[in-house]
């Protein structure tokens, strides 16, 4: 059963130094507030996992929380590059960042395998690209029935997963809707999980397209209204596109980023 707790406590229980951790959310429902709390708590040596490490990981990387990034697309959606990510990769600032790079299909299937308790997933992917040369985590596999050669990727087992959702009830059952991405898979792939929510309610009314995570697969729920900002929570807020634009300037050099970082702590 999930424990409903304040954000700071929940983050400190769920995300630990050295963790392989995913903050998931596909453009929608990105758990920014939890990310900022991780920065405040000074977590270090994280292996950050995310299909689309956008601004939230630019912030964590710039703050020096990460030693490795496992990802498939690292950009500021609709804006351009992630400058803190680039600075870490190209210049090792503030600390070197190791990369493990996949395609979206590969990452999604790696989460699915972990959520399914399997050691690997099979897909038609990566064929003819240079991606398999850069990691041991993309291998051929032969169909035992047809002899066809496909691609295998290992399960993406997480120490911790953090997501944002619209609602939870008082027992800790979690409900999210709109674009639901790989959040269910991330939680099911993790040993520990935290869900920040817009609100805690008495009863989860059924919603079209909603995913419900039962309380017994969630460790902590924290009520953080607006916790996805500048991302959004469908039916609660809209995406703050201006902030994503502004991030380009904020993150462009180390000084302006430093000023932003001081504001978080």
């Amino acid at each position, binding site marked *: 059963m999930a424990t409903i707790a304040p954000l700071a406590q929940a983050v400190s229980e769920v995300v630990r130094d050295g963790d392989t951790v995913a903050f998931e959310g596909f*453009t929608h429902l990105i758990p920014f507030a939890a990310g900022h709390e991780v920065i405040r708590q000074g977590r270090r040596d994280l292996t950050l996992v995310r299909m689309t490490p956008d601004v939230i990981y630019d912030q964590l990387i710039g703050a020096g929380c990460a030693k490795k990034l496992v*990802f498939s697309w690292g950009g500021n959606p609709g804006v351009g590059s992630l400058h803190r990510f680039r600075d870490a990769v190209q210049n090792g600032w503030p600390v070197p960042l190791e990369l493990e790079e996949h395609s979206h299909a590969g990452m999604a299937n790696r989460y699915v395998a972990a959520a399914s308790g399997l050691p690997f997933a099979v897909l038609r992917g*990566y064929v003819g690209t240079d991606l398999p040369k850069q990691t041991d985590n993309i291998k051929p596999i032969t169909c035992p029935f047809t002899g066809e050669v496909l691609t295998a990727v290992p399960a993406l087992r997480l120490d911790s997963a953090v997501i944002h959702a619209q609602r939870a009830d008082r027992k800790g059952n979690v409900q999210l809707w709109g674009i639901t991405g790989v959040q269910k898979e991330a939680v099911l792939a993790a040993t520990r999980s935290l869900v920040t929510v817009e609100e805690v309610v008495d009863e989860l009314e059924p919603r079209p*397209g909603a995913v419900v995570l039962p309380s017994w697969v969630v460790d902590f729920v924290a009520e953080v209204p607006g916790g996805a900002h500048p991302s959004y929570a469908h039916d609660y807020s809209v995406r703050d596109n201006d902030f994503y634009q502004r991030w380009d300037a904020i993150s462009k050099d180390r000084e302006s980023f430093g000023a932003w970082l001081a504001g978080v702590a």
Partner: protein
Amino acid sequence: MTDYTSDEMMTVAAARALENGAVCFVGIGLPSTAANLARRTHAPDLVLIYESGTIGSKPGTLPLSIGDGVLAETADSLVGVPEIFNYWLQPGRVDVGFLGAAQLDRFANINTTVIGGDYRDPKVRLPGAGGAPEIAASCREVFMIVRQTARAFVERVDFVTSLGFGTGAGDRERLGLRGAGPRLVITDLGVLRPDPRTCELTMTQLHPGVDLATAKARTGWDLKVSSDLVTTAPPTDAELAALRELAA
């Protein structure tokens, strides 16, 4: 006739290439703009799929990200991200994959990973693969929309993020890929198509007012030109009006 920019010509030309009723897996940015323009003009039944899991989205305004709420709200069906790749893209249900690229080579291979230097120590680190490797592999055909510059159109990409024709004809078949690969590259100067025999990208069409010398100068390899080189019809007033309304 209204004045228009070369980007507008490019987007209109790309939109025209999409047939009504086709199922199109759309990248954000220029591909999304062109696909939505097609839906607003000659192809009202074009089915747009975004990798965020929205099938049959009909956005009234252009989405700024691949996961804007309007894509979900207007979709015929909304599914999770693993499902969109596994059930919808991978089996070859999609007619057209519509992609952009940071760097593209004469065999239409795509690089969105690193430019210059080594993979571990690149000159420029780009965003990476996203959905493109499997879009390029599994859609029945691939359209690309890329601004034509000698820096972007190179002899050989620094990194193959998504496969076009590899080193030439026969590579896709040898690798067992099911989709036919890139069929059109629409640029701000014109349109390139793979040579039916060699798969080398060949200039087959120029937009009005673009001369061949410019196209060659803005291509990083010795650009071949089709003997049937045609000129694109300029954007109609209706196309421009629809595009500008969409972008507003």
